[in-house]
């Protein structure tokens, strides 16, 4: 076991896979000599050179479309967007091409491509550097969506993403980058579609996404001091979504809250609520609740930015409200 940061753990997973498979290459702005704006590729250029760590002009649509063609012809591209906000110029390539080509070719073509980037609100990054956007990727068939919440998961899930023959959106919350965690010395992978019980409890179930996991665990700790027992579930992947683990928890607790920094309307909380209601209608002692970030563009000023994201306090309050239902 070693202690690594979230970024270092992801980088270790990437390095292991690049060493294992020479067909893997990374594209992005500043991911070569510079080692990535967030140090995602630090040290790899020295090992693998410009063909496998390819700095690009500012052409998100261009290199995403290029990587689509590369994935169709025998290599395994990883697109490092730095901020995932920049992915929006390439949505046509992702929805109309990358997500559909396995289907259109009846599986004769594979689409082993990883699209990774920093998501989330924090550090006054303002409205063009704070997006998450994962609900739309969950909505579209043909894509996998991964939202690791800790260093252990980011390494194991990234290795699975890189080995997947499906296109994977790998979305890392920038506020988690410096969090530390224990990483085994031996290799491990984490399968998609397997939620983690981050904390066991009996009175209410809380599904927390990405950066909300830690805050929710803090809320659960606070409530534990008051003798309230909360189960916290980290879905880890949103597509596929492990609804079974969530439903089992609700079967036990009878109550569910979904905590998600991103927008509520047509968000992942709505999907989980709709599925759990059908799977466990008779289990529910209260309506399934959602706690989301406010439905607004992200403002710059710290005073405003802090007001739009769920906090340990607002999560605690939401759980109390759910228990009072």
């Amino acid at each position: 076991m070693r202690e690594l940061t979230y970024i270092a753990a992801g980088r270790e997973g990437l390095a292991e896979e690049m060493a294992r498979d020479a067909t893997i290459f990374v594209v992005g702005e500043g991911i070569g000599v510079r080692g990535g704006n967030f140090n995602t590729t630090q040290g790899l250029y020295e090992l693998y050179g410009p063909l496998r760590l390819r700095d690009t002009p500012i052409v998100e649509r261009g290199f995403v479309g290029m990587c689509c063609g590369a994935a169709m012809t025998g290599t395994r591209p990883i697109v490092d967007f730095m901020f995932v906000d920049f992915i929006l110029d390439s949505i046509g390539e992702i929805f109309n091409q990358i997500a559909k080509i396995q289907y259109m070719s009846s599986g004769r073509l594979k689409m082993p491509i990883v699209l990774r980037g920093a998501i989330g609100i924090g550090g006054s990054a303002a409205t063009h550097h704070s997006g998450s956007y994962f609900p739309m990727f969950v909505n579209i068939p043909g894509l996998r969506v991964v939202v690791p919440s800790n260093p252990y998961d980011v390494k194991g899930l990234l290795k699975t993403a890189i080995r997947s023959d499906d296109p994977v959106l790998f979305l890392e919350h920038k506020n988690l980058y410096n969090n530390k965690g224990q990483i085994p010395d031996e290799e491990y992978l984490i399968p998609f579609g397997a939620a983690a019980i981050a904390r066991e409890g009996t009175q209410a179930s809380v599904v927390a996404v990405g950066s909300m996991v830690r805050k929710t665990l803090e809320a659960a700790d606070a409530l534990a001091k008051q003798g309230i027992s909360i189960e916290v579930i980290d879905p880890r992947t949103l597509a596929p979504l492990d609804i079974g683990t969530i439903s089992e928890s609700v079967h036990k607790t009878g109550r569910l809250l979904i905590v998600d920094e991103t927008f509520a309307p047509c968000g992942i909380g709505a999907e989980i609520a709709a599925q759990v209601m059908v799977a466990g209608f008779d289990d529910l002692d209260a309506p399934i609740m959602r706690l989301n970030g406010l439905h607004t563009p992200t403002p710059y000023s710290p005073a405003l930015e802090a007001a739009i994201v769920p906090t340990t306090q607002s999560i605690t309050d939401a759980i109390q409200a759910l228990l009072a239902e």
Partner: protein
Amino acid sequence: MSTQIDTTITIGKMEALALYRQMLMIRRCEEQLAKSYQAGMIPGACHTYVGEEAVATGICAHLTHRDAVFSTHRGHGHALAKGVTPRQLIAELYGRETGCSRGRGGSMHLFSPEVGMMGTSGIVGPCILQATGAGYSFKLLNTDQVGVAFFGDGAVNNGAFHEGINLATIWELPVIFVCENNMYATEIAFSYATRNTEVAERAASYKIPSVAVDGNDVLAVHAAAAEAVARARAGGGASFIECKTYRTRPHAEGMRDAGYRTADEIEAWKARDPLALLQSRLVGEGIANAGDFEPIDAEIKALVEDAAEFAKNSPFPDPTSVTNHIYSASQ
């Protein structure tokens, strides 16, 4: 940028007749599809390649199944020239399980990776980027394969053109960009869509080797492609070829063909029919005689009739298979 292409016939009789045969196969398939469309056998769209056969034929003559072609909504000719059979093509447009895309695609989504037909797209632009990506794979894998993008003048003003050509150029990728400039995007004249209608000249501004050729002269296309493909295979990087050509049928079957171009213009281009041009050239220079073409005509006629019959008798896909292959087996 050079527009000088030496068109003295450098290829042998067999090769020349093979080009004729390929163009004829495309022509007859398209004529069959037009008939089938009118007969209601084609449930979706049908964009024919009639008049542009020389482009796909002249380019693909240099490609093997290991090379990767990416194309557009007007892709029947590219698919056939790359090795998709008339049976697979017609069955696909009929929506049958025996089609090259198993009936999932239709006219605008032709997939046959077995022969390096990596797909046509109903969206204008992506083929340029995907061919660039194929070139990236081939460079990384260090093979001698090439990626080829066919696209129309309508794609030239699109950002995909700008971004894809620049990337292939700076990274010296083995890619051939083939612009089929037929002067119109649906009913929008290229001369309206840009103030600089010289596509090869615009491509040259990225400092990619670029040439403009008569797209109705299969020998000119063939010669330009020979140079570009050889350069790519030798590690010399990407090339651009503008083929000035014309579609003599409406944008799509069932659409009007008036109000945006004149009958005279259509007639003038029909007079430069790529098949007739090649035939008279070969006969004129004594390389072939009328007798050489008859057996080819007969063979292709039979081939296409058989294909239409095959398609008509092919089963529709099984609805229970409709959600297969959305994800790979690996998950």
